[in-house]
């Protein structure tokens, strides 16, 4: 109404033919608050969405609803005590977080090379199992975001087997505290390797089933392909990592490019978005990278099992991984380390600065979900509201890690 002519003629304004121009004939912008209570924000994330009808003009993620001061907390805890806390960062991939923390501290202590091979293989086995579990959740919820509920429950059905394996090995189903600095909490229970192999055999056909039901379903492809395209430069500039980055076509995997533990000895492919459907960097390719990584993880698991059953990491009677842990973890004063690891969601990095006591002086976690989430507004502008949900699902965030 501000364009109305002189005040005296104001009441004629509504019928003034020159008042309305074609470009003004658009719907009004509306701010839609998605979350923190919303079925598809994967936790307590709040998205402030500026919409023009169905079209998303801008997205502003509001974080911090799950902030628990992990980094500050870590300064008042001894190094082994931090492990239960890192579990709770990316609670869907707790093993990977533990592994990251343990190896980072070992690097700080300078004992990374001395880790017993069996410990190393068990760690890799656990990390890859957890990668599968995490990707299953990611794929399942992504399908649900697109409206397919059944794949979600099938994924959870199979994840349950991994959780059972973990409970058997570590005693806990979600937050394990299994990988310790220098060692492990326990050795694998007897029979674990065999059961793990059976899991691999059991699981391979399920991945095919999932592909039939979801991956190549036309509706799913239509919903996800060419949606939320993340160009490679943008991905690099925003510090995206993990499947986000690989989905855009960069063959970058820290397990291969900055290896740790026994990954150099293991054979696996780095999956990238090839644009088999859609274009590299879209939601479908990110999804596909995860689906393919599940199969690569199965490969790694089989190789680990070979070593654990017959190879260098055979079970021995005197092997006690708890005894391998240093009784007191006191890095030298001034020692610092930045160690980075390939988590299911991307590059998890820990910067640790020691002041020569049992407790770290400063800890900084570079969490992959946080960086990946930051690119959300960039790739969802101009998409539709339904796409926004799919894009958010394809970014695959865990709020425990975003907020820490």
């Amino acid at each position, binding site marked *: 109404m501000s364009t109305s002519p002189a005040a005296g003629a104001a*009441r004629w304004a*509504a*019928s003034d033919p020159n008042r309305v121009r*074609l*470009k003004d*004939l*658009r*719907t*009004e912008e*509306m*701010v839609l608050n998605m979350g923190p209570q919303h079925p598809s924000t994967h936790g307590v994330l709040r998205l402030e969405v500026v919409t*023009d*009808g169905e*079209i998303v*003009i801008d997205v502003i993620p509001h974080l911090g609803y799950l902030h628990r001061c992990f980094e500050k907390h870590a300064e008042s805890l001894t190094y082994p005590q931090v492990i239960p806390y890192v579990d709770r960062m990316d609670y869907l991939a707790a093993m990977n977080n533990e592994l990251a923390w343990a190896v980072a501290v070992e690097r700080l202590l300078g004992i990374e090379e001395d880790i017993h091979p069996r410990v190393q293989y068990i760690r890799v086995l656990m990390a890859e199992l957890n990668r599968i579990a995490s990707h299953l959740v990611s794929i399942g919820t992504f399908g649900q975001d697109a409206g397919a509920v059944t794949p979600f429950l099938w994924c959870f059905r199979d994840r349950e087997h991994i959780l059972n394996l973990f409970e058997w090995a570590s005693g806990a189903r979600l937050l394990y505290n299994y990988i310790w600095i220098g060692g492990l909490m326990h050795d694998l229970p007897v029979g674990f390797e065999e059961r793990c192999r059976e899991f691999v055999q059991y699981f391979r056909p399920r991945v095919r089933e999932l592909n039939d039901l979801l991956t190549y379903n036309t509706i799913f492809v*239509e919903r996800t392909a*060419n*949606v939320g*395209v993340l160009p490679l430069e943008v991905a690099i500039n925003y510090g995206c990592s993990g499947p986000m980055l690989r989905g855009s076509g960069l063959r970058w995997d820290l397990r291969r490019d900055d290896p740790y533990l026994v990954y150099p000895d293991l054979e696996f492919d780095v999956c990238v978005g090839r644009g088999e459907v859609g274009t590299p960097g879209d939601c479908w390719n990110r999804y596909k990278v995860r689906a393919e990584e599940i199969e690569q993880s199965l490969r790694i698991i089989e190789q680990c099992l070979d070593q654990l059953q017959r190879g260098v990491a055979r079970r021995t009677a005197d092997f006690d991984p708890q005894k391998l842990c240093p009784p007191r973890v006191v890095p030298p004063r001034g020692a610092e380390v930045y160690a980075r690891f390939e988590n299911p969601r991307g590059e998890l990095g820990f910067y640790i600065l020691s002041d020569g006591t049992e407790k770290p002086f400063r800890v900084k976690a570079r969490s992959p979900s946080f960086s990946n989430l930051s690119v959300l507004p960039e790739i969802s*502008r*101009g*998409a539709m509201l339904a796409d926004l949900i799919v894009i958010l699902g394809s970014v695959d965030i865990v709020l425990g890690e975003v907020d820490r």
Partner: protein
Amino acid sequence: MDYYRIAFYLFGALTVLAAVVVVWSRNLIHAGMGLLLTLFGVAGLYALAAADFLAVVQILVYVGGIVILLLFGIMLTQRIAGRAPRTGVVNRTVGALIATGLFVLFVMVIFSARFAELPWIAQGRMIDRESAPPVGSTVERLGQLLVGPYLLLFEVAALVLTVALIGAAYLARRSRQEGARPRRMIS
């Protein structure tokens, strides 16, 4: 008093009352809903007049189509957050003049028409409702009329609608191109 009469008055009352809501309500959505009810009442009157096809088409086109789109437009273009969309009273004098003039005109027409003497009404009055065969479907007659004597008008109407459709598509395209925001076209 038979059912037809009761139903007639019910639908009549519905039509008039809803029309009053349309006129008096300052909430645009309420007015739109009133319009919907008015047209629904009119459809009921059509049905009572044995024009079943017309009644159903009235509901299909006006109630289910046009008014819904009207409301749709109001909802999309008016401010959504905050207060409900309201109309102001503008052009009081002119409006009153036109309304009064129309009213007088209609009343004059009604009183000068002498409906009772119209041939088809007179014919209808002579049919005994109890013994007469039920009124057949009007669909066939209407169809024959539309593609027979009124073919040209039918085609013209179709043409007008097509032009309107093309125009709407054109407007939608224009505004999208003018939009500064890039929109990736998907599939």
